[in-house]
């Protein structure tokens, strides 16, 4: 079976004045793939991701998400992606239920679907007792799982996760990755940035960004073979050491 | 920002806050068109208080201007004004005042009344003179205006506004800064060090206290003296002595606010709300004696009242410490009260 391309990036550049944050990157991501987007702080990961989400206009280059062009079809792209940002992205002063309903409403789901989906979601997450509590009162791990569920509530083609597991304990992280696999099984493409090298091992393919360029792109095993490394940690060290930009 | 804003406000506010009643727009409807009516009109215009908006015979058109706020007062001179004046029956004038702004209306009509009665006096004497009767000059009122020779409103406002600004700077800075440490979490850091709470608070207050004195000095010397030409009649010693105590009270209020709020937004809103009441109930803009008793009581609990009062008295009248001892005592008590309350509350919350 031929793999369907969902994200196609060609020679993408983003410059802020003299500073070139993203320097001519090209890659492709396939349907249902878990794509790890790695790099040190300040390497340009977030900038690249924001361009793909339509939050920021590229300086030059081309990209297509789910077949839509990022210059001309941003509105169609938005209907087909989910996004979970580095900062926690639910409303703390709304309850679990209100948050789910709000985001479902934002994506234009009808009332029946919203009801069915939110019940389903609360059941899967085991949040029945907390459904009417303010999100602000939940522990961080639960919030993150809830935020991920909300980001894919409209069954998008691609979901972008920007460092989704920062500050979360190992057990919860494991559960979080189970959710990512489940989404991938439903043919949702997962585009994830992370700092945890063990998480990089979970990805189907991994790209390494250094100083705005993509230095390496392969399966985790392939990368380890290329760089003669025992673990992804060592791969990362070898690549990141060559960086000239200081971490922010 | 924190320095520039008060200085700019001190520059602009007094110019804008000119409540002197002058340039009252008057419409005169003259149905009589006699030499008397013209003479009276002339007297009104040359008094300096009034600006003639329109002069005509049509009350309706005058009233239109009145509705549009182009004139504040209509003076209607009836037909036969001159004819009736010589008779024993009185000749009457009708004055209509736009009283939405009660003060302007009251003062404006009082000025007008004064001009009319002066004029009345004059023509009456003339008449008595013609009839060979003894001329009685009547009472002569002489008025002296002290402490503000040129009757400049800015002289009154600048010291008051300076007082408000120093208070604002002190309270805002103090409350915001401490709450910010709470929010960021650095206060936790300090709480785990062996520094005693009292020293921590003192360490916070002293810089703000110095900044307050600095802002005050800039306002007093650069703006008040340099730009408005206000030179204190009294000596600087009571001013600074009072400021030193007063700032402790103001910072105490800021400290107190910070102990009651957990986010910067809350402390901002709370400070804003309190400052509004402090400013309105301080006698800065409206006379305290005119307030009902319960409101006058509130002004007595307001530290800003005392500061503004002391500022005005020392700068304009040259009052000495001896004459201000009551204010000194009250503000010292307030300073102690707010700070003790704040420190007690601070201990409890942490």
């Amino acid at each position: 079976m031929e793999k369907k391309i969902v994200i196609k990036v060609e020679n993408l550049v983003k410059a802020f004045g003299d500073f070139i944050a993203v320097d001519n990157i090209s890659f492709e991501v396939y349907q249902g793939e878990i794509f790890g987007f790695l790099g040190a702080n300040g390497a340009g990961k977030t900038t690249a991701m924001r361009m793909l989400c339509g939050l920021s206009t590229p300086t030059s280059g081309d990209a297509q998400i789910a077949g839509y062009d990022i210059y001309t079809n941003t509105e169609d792209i938005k209907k087909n992606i989910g996004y979970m940002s580095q900062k926690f992205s639910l409303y703390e002063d709304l309850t679990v239920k209100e948050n789910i309903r709000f985001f479902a409403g934002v994506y234009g789901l009808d009332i029946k679907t919203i009801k069915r989906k939110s019940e389903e979601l609360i059941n899967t997450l085991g949040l029945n007792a907390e459904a009417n509590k303010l999100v602000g009162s939940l522990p961080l791990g639960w919030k993150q799982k809830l935020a991920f569920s909300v980001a894919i509530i409209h069954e998008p083609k691609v979901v972008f996760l920007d460092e989704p597991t920062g500050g979360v304990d190992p057990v919860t992280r494991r559960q979080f990755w189970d959710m990512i696999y489940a989404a991938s099984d439903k043919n949702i493409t997962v585009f994830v940035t992370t700092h945890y090298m063990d998480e990089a091992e979970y990805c189907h393919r991994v790209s390494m960004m250094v100083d705005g360029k993509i230095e390496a792109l392969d399966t985790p095993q392939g990368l380890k073979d290329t760089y003669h490394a025992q673990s992804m940690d060592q791969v990362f060290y070898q690549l990141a050491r060559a960086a000239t930009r200081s971490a922010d | 920002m924190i320095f520039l804003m008060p200085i700019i406000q001190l520059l602009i506010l007094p110019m804008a806050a000119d409540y002197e009643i002058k340039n009252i727009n008057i419409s005169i409807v003259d149905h009589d068109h006699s030499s008397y009516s013209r003479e009276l009109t002339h007297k009104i215009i040359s008094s300096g208080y009034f600006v003639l908006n329109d002069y005509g015979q049509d009350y309706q058109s005058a009233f239109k201007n009145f509705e549009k706020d182009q004139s504040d007062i209509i003076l209607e001179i009836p037909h036969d004004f001159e004819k009736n004046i010589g008779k024993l029956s009185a000749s009457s004038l009708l004055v209509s005042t736009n009283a939405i702004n009660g003060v302007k209306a009251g003062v404006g009509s009082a000025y007008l009344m004064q001009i009319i009665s002066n004029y009345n006096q004059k023509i009456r004497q003339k008449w008595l003179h013609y009839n060979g009767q003894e001329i009685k000059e009547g009472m002569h009122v002489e008025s002296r205006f002290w402490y503000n020779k040129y009757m400049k409103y800015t002289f009154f406002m600048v010291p008051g506004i300076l007082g408000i600004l120093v208070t604002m700077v002190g309270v805002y800075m103090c409350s915001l800064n401490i709450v910010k440490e709470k929010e960021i979490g650095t206060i936790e850091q300090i709480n785990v060090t062996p520094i005693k709470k009292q020293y921590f608070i003192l360490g916070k207050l002293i810089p703000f206290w110095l900044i307050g004195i600095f802002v005050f000095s800039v306002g007093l010397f650069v703006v008040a003296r340099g730009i408005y030409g206000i030179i204190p009649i009294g000596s600087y010693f009571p001013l600074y002595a009072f400021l030193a105590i007063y700032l402790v009270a103001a910072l105490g209020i800021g400290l107190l606010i910070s102990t009651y709020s957990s986010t910067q937004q809350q402390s901002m809103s709370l400070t804003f709300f309190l400052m509004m009441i402090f400013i309105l109930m301080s006698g800065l803009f409206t006379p305290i004696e005119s307030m009902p008793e319960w409101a006058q009581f509130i002004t007595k609990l307001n530290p800003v009242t005392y500061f503004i009062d002391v500022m005005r008295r020392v700068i304009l009248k040259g009052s000495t410490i001896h004459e201000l001892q009551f204010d000194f005592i009250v503000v010292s008590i307030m300073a102690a009260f707010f700070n003790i309350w704040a420190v007690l509350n601070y201990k409890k919350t942490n």
Partner: protein
Amino acid sequence: MRQLLAYIKKEFYHVFRDSKTLILLFGMPIVQILLFGFALTNEIKNSELIICDYSNNKTSEKLIEKFRANNNFLLKEVIYDDHDYNQIFRESKVKLIITLPENFEGDLIHQGKSTVLLTADASDPNTSNTLVVYATNILYDFQKEMSNNVILIPYTIDTSIRMMYNPELKGAYNFVPGVMSLVLLLVCVLMTSVSIVREKELGTMEILLVSPTNPLIIIISKAIPYFLLSIVNLTVILLLSTYLLDMPINGSLFLLYLASSILILTALALGLLISNVTNSQEAAMLISLMGMLMPTILFTGFMFPIENMPLPLQIVSNIVPSRWYFIIVKDVVIKGLGFASIWKEMLVLMGMAIFLLALSLKKFKTRLE
């Protein structure tokens, strides 16, 4: 439409969950109306007065009685010998000292002339001026009464004064429209700007922008709750002023609400603009509160007459939206005028609203750079 509803519902949750702000939102106008209505007046009442009476006889006593009965003045003391006036002014709150000469009665009755000296503390030039006018009028009245006893003279001009729109000279008539302008403008500007910037700070704004929602919906949904709250606020102020301060509404309520809606719209647009240029709640608050409060109080014209200001400031006052609204409210509520007299001001407000909306929509960035 479904999206819009979801957004509006969410905004209302935000508003009602934040009880402290809500209290402030409704508490502030109420406190202000009460203070302005009952406590603050520019009228001059109970000004402390000292009469120095060197003559000390029946005529002077009668005159002193007249001052005692007048409620502009509060006769603090009558003194009969030399005092240092300077000392009196510096130590106490006395604003005016009237000096009656030794032969006050004799001079007045026999020679028909006498000189009375008024010494005023002019640190507040306005008050002192007014007090001197009041006192002079009382003195002339007194003289009239005295001389009426002697002979009846013709050549008397009788002046009757009508206080239009506000016969009791209540301060509320001036302040209530002022507070309305102030509260509506500030609350809307502050609340919209802060609520948008808060989403920026929290990062939720990114999520909303990544979603397929039209940015216009995000903005409208931010505006609607505060619009409705402001209308409620306005109604509370009007009820308070009608039933508590006895200030009748003479004009059309519809017109008043229409004008208020336009002002609120202008304010919301301004809030939006502020939120576009700031990135932290602190900055948004500083600009809305510090930057807006003082100019609004000053240039609306309810505290200080605009015509007294230097020309540059008068020109500046034209760009303050509440200034135009204040004129409309005075015309409609107090004078009871109709649309014909306020259409110009309405048009100016409309123009401001449209201009600000266009500007802020243009600046509202779909893509956060």
